[in-house]
């Protein structure tokens, strides 16, 4: 005899309103059905009514967590339509701010995961470390969450020598502090009891269901869109982080290793900043279409943009990483116990605001 348990939209574990209708038999989840629409605003439609330059600011507000990456990917799409080559310095700065966003997003996700299995002091410790990167973003751009640093043709803000030293100091602090917290997440007996073997997604299912980002990489798929070398990633030295354990523990491990990888990438990008202007001047309106991709903290985002020669876009379509990760998440939820639902959902790190726009 099964019964339906609603999980959300207002739930202590979830920071966002997602509803999962869980069909349970005793304590085991038999099937899960997501109910969406609680955060839908209609942003794609609004983007078609505004100027394509104003859209840079609007699209930044698709999601507050990976805001800079959304606006840069959009700008890359417009640049591809209009054949604008952006200056070298802008490419490196885009990498630096993108990686800062990745650190802050991963620390946020790991903290919330710790809160989901009831380790509140670890949640507080991780979020205290996260404040260092928020300070670095505020010192370089003036905004903690919405950086507004990207624009079509380059970037709007610069990182000078003094700001660079500040960022490097903060990175050293994060590295030292996060090593201790990573040790707790990876080696603590009680933490491992909640994450090891929970939410298993094997490589074949991950591939078939179209998992992206850390969810795919924790299942052994070597998928990182940064390897294609957009922005200045082709000039930086890094390898995608891949784990083969396929469970919530592996996804945690991927995120932890990516935080250290991002710290390394920011150091590389800031040490190699070329001395060029920040922005390429351009004229005219976009005419044509482009599909661009970028690697966000949660996975690969795809933008499809179509211009018709006017200052307003004909179509702006976004496929966000969380949308791709919903199908793998539902697969993980089948057969898990009700107590593990929160851990599984947060190990995928869904961003509902991105998905529904």
């Amino acid at each position, binding site marked *: 005899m099964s019964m339906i348990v609603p999980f959300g939209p207002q739930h202590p574990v979830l920071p966002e*309103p997602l509803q999962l209708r869980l069909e349970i038999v005793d304590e085991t989840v038999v099937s899960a059905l997501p109910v969406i629409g*609680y955060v*839908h605003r*209609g942003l794609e439609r*609004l983007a078609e009514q505004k100027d394509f330059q104003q859209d840079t600011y609007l699209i930044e507000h698709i999601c*507050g967590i990976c805001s800079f990456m959304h606006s840069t990917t959009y700008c890359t799409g417009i640049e591809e339509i209009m054949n604008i080559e952006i200056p070298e310095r802008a490419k490196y700065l885009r990498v630096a701010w993108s990686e800062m966003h990745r650190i802050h997003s991963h620390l946020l996700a790991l903290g919330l995961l710790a809160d989901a299995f009831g380790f509140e002091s670890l949640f507080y410790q991780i979020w205290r470390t996260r*404040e260092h990167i*928020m300070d670095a973003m505020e010192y370089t751009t003036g905004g903690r969450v919405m950086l507004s640093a990207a624009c079509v043709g380059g970037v709007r803000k610069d990182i000078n020598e003094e700001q660079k030293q500040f960022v490097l100091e903060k990175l050293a602090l994060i590295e030292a502090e996060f090593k201790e917290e990573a040790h707790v997440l990876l080696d603590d007996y009680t933490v491992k009891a909640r994450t090891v073997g929970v939410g298993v997604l094997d490589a074949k299912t991950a591939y078939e269901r179209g998992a992206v980002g850390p969810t795919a990489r924790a299942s052994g798929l070597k998928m990182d869109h940064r390897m294609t070398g957009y922005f200045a990633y082709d000039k930086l030295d890094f390898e995608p982080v891949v784990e083969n354990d396929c469970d919530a523990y592996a996804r945690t491990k991927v995120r932890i290793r990516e935080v250290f990888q991002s710290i390394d990438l920011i150091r590389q990008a800031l040490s190699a900043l070329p001395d060029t202007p920040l922005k390429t001047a351009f004229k005219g309106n976009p005419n044509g279409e482009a599909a661009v991709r970028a690697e966000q903290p949660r996975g690969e985002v795809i933008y499809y943009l179509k211009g018709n020669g006017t200052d307003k876009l004909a179509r702006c379509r976004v496929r966000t990483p969380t949308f791709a990760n919903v199908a793998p998440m539902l697969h993980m939820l089948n057969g898990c116990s009700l107590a593990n639902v929160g851990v599984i959902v947060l190990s995928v790190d869904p*961003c509902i605001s991105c998905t529904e726009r």
Partner: protein
Amino acid sequence: MSKFTGKSPWVVHFNCNSCNGCDIEFLACLTPLYDAERFGVLHVGNPKHADILVVTGSVNKKNMHVLKNVYDQIPAPKAVVAMGVCAATGGLFADCYNVVGGIDKVIPVDVHVPGCPPKPEAMLDGIVKAVEILKKKTKETETVTEELPVVIVKPKELPAETAAPATAKESEK
């Protein structure tokens, strides 16, 4: 009662239609750097335990019923804080087809915190202001206890033989 209200206001957070910008900043308020707990603020998940409702984002046709439901579950007296410009008017998304407007279309709001997103310092200020409003509301709704008859209960006098061992024990100590 009003003497104690406001010493430890419990806060429940509801994300209406937000872009997450305000939500992550509100969560940052509770963490060690900004530390809202020094004002006694505790973040709870159950609206039935809460005194203050913090709402981020505007309302749409689907979540307005959920917001009303969460608001109705909070026991009176209660205060509502609208975080960010979206919760006030709809903000950047006011022209979107699925956005109804600010949360004041659904529930009464006590404090508006402007910004997109507001700084954590501004958010703390908003919560402290909501605590003042909560104190005032408590005074208005308080039952006057002075006029009730005062009943003093005295213990019955015990018989001499049962009272004796107790006193003997005390003297041993």
